[in-house]
């Protein structure tokens, strides 16, 4: 049994002459032409192992489900996903032309061959869909957390499966705090704390699951566009490097697992033999890596950004129609969101919009053009990206992950209800969630 790490959350597991690839993002950027995998040199199509028997995709974020990589695979290869409450992810894969998409019930093993079974493990979150994967063969057991935030009972069950090798997320991969309008001191303090909490989470995951060998992965990406270089700072940045996870494990004094730092394209055998094929990107050499990568891909990235085009003259009406629809259709979400948003669609054909999701507002226009000082949340987003989002060509989450926007909050609080509405405003989904949420709280 051999596992090849291919960057971010992508692993290729080869066992008993069968190959399964998990979360294949190998080439090109994702998240609106911003993220690259942690590599010294960008991968090419030749690096994509298309001769696989099975594909597993944990969830729809583009660093796990990336079309540029997926289009290189035969559409006949079976794709396995977790059976989520909604069909949205299933339908997105279907749109790519894959013919055989199999939904797995969480924690119900799927026998692929007499020597190989996989078990999908769903996250417990009410609002956001994600999954991890356990792969068992007669040669050994591999666990891939991807970036699934798992419930503690599931961790104990994975521990009981006695994994030989586990791949664990170690880094924040999110827009907070970088897009927010904080002072430098405040921003740095938040980033430091977030990074520490995530690495602490890595240590606890490894300690509970206790694989023989734990690989730190699904971490921070590289942002090579010249306008985003500062996001890569290994000291002040929120995005970590795998050596930091290893150091934290060693410092914790916990035992029973060995943490391994792998570069993309490295391999690990089931007995822990680490085959080093590339130099890893670490906190000590990250800025050199990003400088080189930035030079290498800048021209291509600029072309991609230009090809995104401009917003159309119809954008203001589209914004108003879109938000009036999703806010009016989801009164229960509005009750929990309870805030006013100032949306600035920045650039050609953009404008300023007030989205009123106050719980006291129960009728009339929820979205209109205008400016207010009375906002709770301010979002300044390139107009052409807002248009893609309201056209439903781009997930709001994907746009947010790109860090190509600015925000502010009054009060300075996370509002999961607002993000959940944008995640998928389908009224049936929203209504089902709040039936459970309101019982819980």
């Amino acid at each position: 049994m051999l596992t090849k790490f291919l960057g971010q959350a992508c692993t290729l597991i080869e066992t008993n002459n069968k190959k399964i690839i998990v979360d294949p993002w190998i080439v090109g950027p994702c998240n609106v032409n911003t993220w690259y995998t942690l590599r010294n040199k960008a991968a090419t199509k030749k690096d994509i192992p298309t001769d696989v028997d099975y594909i597993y995709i944990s969830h729809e974020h583009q660093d796990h489900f990336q079309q540029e990589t997926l289009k290189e695979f035969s559409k006949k290869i079976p794709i396995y996903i977790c059976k989520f409450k909604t069909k949205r992810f299933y339908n997105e894969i279907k749109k790519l032309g894959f013919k055989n998409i199999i939904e797995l019930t969480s924690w119900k093993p799927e026998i692929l061959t007499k020597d190989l079974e996989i078990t999908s493990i769903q996250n417990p979150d009410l609002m956001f869909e994600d999954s991890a994967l356990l792969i068992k063969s007669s040669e050994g057991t591999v666990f891939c957390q991807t970036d699934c935030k798992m419930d503690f009972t599931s961790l104990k069950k994975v521990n009981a499966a006695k994994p030989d090798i586990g791949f664990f997320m170690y880094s924040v991969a999110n827009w907070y705090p970088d897009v927010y309008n904080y002072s430098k001191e405040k921003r740095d303090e938040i980033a430091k704390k977030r990074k520490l909490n995530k690495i602490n989470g890595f240590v606890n995951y490894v300690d509970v699951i206790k694989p023989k060998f734990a690989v730190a992965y699904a971490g921070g990406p590289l942002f090579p566009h010249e306008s985003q270089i500062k996001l890569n700072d290994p000291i002040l940045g929120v995005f970590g490097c795998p050596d930091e996870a290893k150091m934290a494990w060693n410092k914790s004094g916990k035992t029973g697992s060995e943490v391994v730092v792998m570069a993309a394209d490295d391999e690990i055998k089931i007995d822990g033999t680490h085959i080093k094929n590339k130099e890893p990107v670490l906190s000590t050499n990250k800025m050199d890596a990003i400088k080189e990568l930035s030079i290498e891909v800048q021209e291509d990235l600029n072309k991609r950004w230009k090809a995104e085009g401009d917003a159309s003259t119809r954008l203001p009406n589209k914004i108003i129609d879109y938000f009036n629809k999703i806010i009016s259709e989801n009164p229960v979400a509005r009750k929990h969101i309870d805030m006013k948003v100032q949306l600035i669609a920045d650039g050609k054909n953009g404008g300023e919009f007030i989205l009123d999701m106050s719980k006291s507002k129960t009728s009339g226009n929820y979205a209109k053009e205008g400016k207010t000082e009375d906002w709770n949340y301010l979002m300044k987003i390139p107009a052409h990206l807002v248009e893609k989002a309201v056209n439903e060509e781009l997930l709001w989450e994907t746009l947010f992950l790109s860090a190509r926007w600015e925000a502010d909050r009054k009060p300075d609080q996370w509002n999961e209800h607002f993000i959940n509405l944008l995640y998928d405003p389908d009224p049936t989904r929203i209504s089902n969630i709040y039936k459970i949420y309101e019982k819980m709280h």
Partner: protein
Amino acid sequence: MEIIIKKKEIPANELIEISTNPKIIIFNNGEKYFAVSGICPHAKWPLELGFVSDDSLTCGGHGWEFNITNGECISNPGRDIKKYKIKEDELDITIYD
């Protein structure tokens, strides 16, 4: 519900589980004692795996933060944990609803 525990069994600056059903944890910051529900509402992680800094209890799984003095969720408002009342005498602590 009422649980009585010896003060000497609660060292300072450690999160200690004192009941499994309901799951309750206690924290002694060197001056005062705080008792809250021991399960994170996010993904049911045991909160004794977390850590406390000032008044903030951080879950060891995914970093959700709670104010240990009143149970309010700081990182995700509305997702609070239950706070238990405490009576203190010279030797014992009583935790009650």
